[in-house]
């Protein structure tokens, strides 16, 4: 399993992670970021891609 954490104090809702990894990240109805904290291991590359494209570098991927 992969562990994903987003520093919500840093996140500024750019939404780039949603394009990179739509199975992990989405923007909810209030325009705020929601995400799966323990996505399937098969989504590791997507999670890494999402962390790469975050302009605030707010996403961490572990495990």
């Amino acid at each position, binding site marked *: 399993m992969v562990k994903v954490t987003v520093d919500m104090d840093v996140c500024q809702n*750019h939404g780039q992670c949603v394009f990179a990894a739509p199975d992990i990240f989405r923007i909810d109805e209030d325009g705020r970021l929601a995400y799966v904290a323990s996505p399937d291991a098969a989504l590791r590359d997507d999670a890494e891609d999402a962390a790469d494209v975050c302009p605030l570098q707010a996403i961490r991927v572990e495990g």
Partner: protein
Amino acid sequence: MAGAGIAVVGASLGGLRAAEQLRAAGWRGTITLFGDEPHLPYNRPPLSKEVLAGEAPASGTQLRRRPSVEDVEWRLGTAVATADLTARTLTLADGRVHPYEGLVAATGVRPRRLPLPGGPPRHVVRTLEDSAALAAELVAGARVLVIGSGFIGCEVAATARTAGCEVTVVAPESEPMVLAIGEDLARALRHRHEARGVRFRMGHLATALTPRGAVLDDGTELDADVLVEAVGSLPNTEWLAATPGLDLTDGILCDAHLRIGGLPHAVAVGDVARFPNPRYGPLPRRVEHWSVPGDTARHAARTLLAALTDTSRDPAPCAPLPSFWSDQFTLRLQSFGQPALADRAELLSGDPESADGDLLYGYYLGERLIGVAALGGPAAAAAAARHRAELMTLPEPVV
């Protein structure tokens, strides 16, 4: 040469992503990253925003590094002086020679300077050190003159104004950022800056600098304690000049697979790369947006590995969707596609006369939507993002 590994020149966003993508594509050999700055790769956008405002510590700007690059060799504080792309060697500033099998050029750009002598204390914003030096001068009441109204000029103006400085922007164009977002949205952007106290002298050039400020082409003298030069950039390509046959007129000319001058073992990524993007025709262009180093690194890494391992490469050309954002005051400007290449802009939503509401413009080339740009809050940016799928559609035929 076998075993010499891959050399990456430039240890910033593009260089780091290239190393990570080489690993992701299966390269297990040596990777050496040369960077003339003393720092590990850090993020530049906050340098004109949070870091300049003193809201974020410089230490918070380090770029995340994938675990896969833990074993790369970092040669920081080490400028590459020249490269011989035929012999496949680099010569470092200290004279040492470094052979390589494959090369990634990721040397970015540096600020262009005004061709005028003198003036009050002068600043540019490209590095951590630049940002710290300017931040120290942005005290309330300081008169800040920003020359240039591109995105760094506008961001610095907003940050300085927020810090309580008296800010004036001078630039020859009709409106700030007009080249990137077109006349209408640029005018709205200026109005919002003016509503927050930034003054503009658009349509003017500084023709002389004095210790007290600047003289404009209409004879006006502007008093300033601090001068910020934000007049564009120059690609860092001098280290390649010794290799004959390369086109370095504006960055490094690459083919559709990011190969330098058609050479099999050398690729370029990020701000320094000039390449054709089939989304927008055959003309090669350089794009100085944060998203481009990542996109080009992925493609360039595969191109280079195919050459080094004698396998066939992905036949599709590199075709990233350009996107940029800019934060000015509490406004976010968000763009997808290439508004600059449009022949017509259309207001898609919002009221351009309002001082604060969200604005969304579509940019068309003929009938085709080739860009969108939004100004306002998160909802405006989200509205722009909804056009992304349409902008991703490649035109026919693909070259």
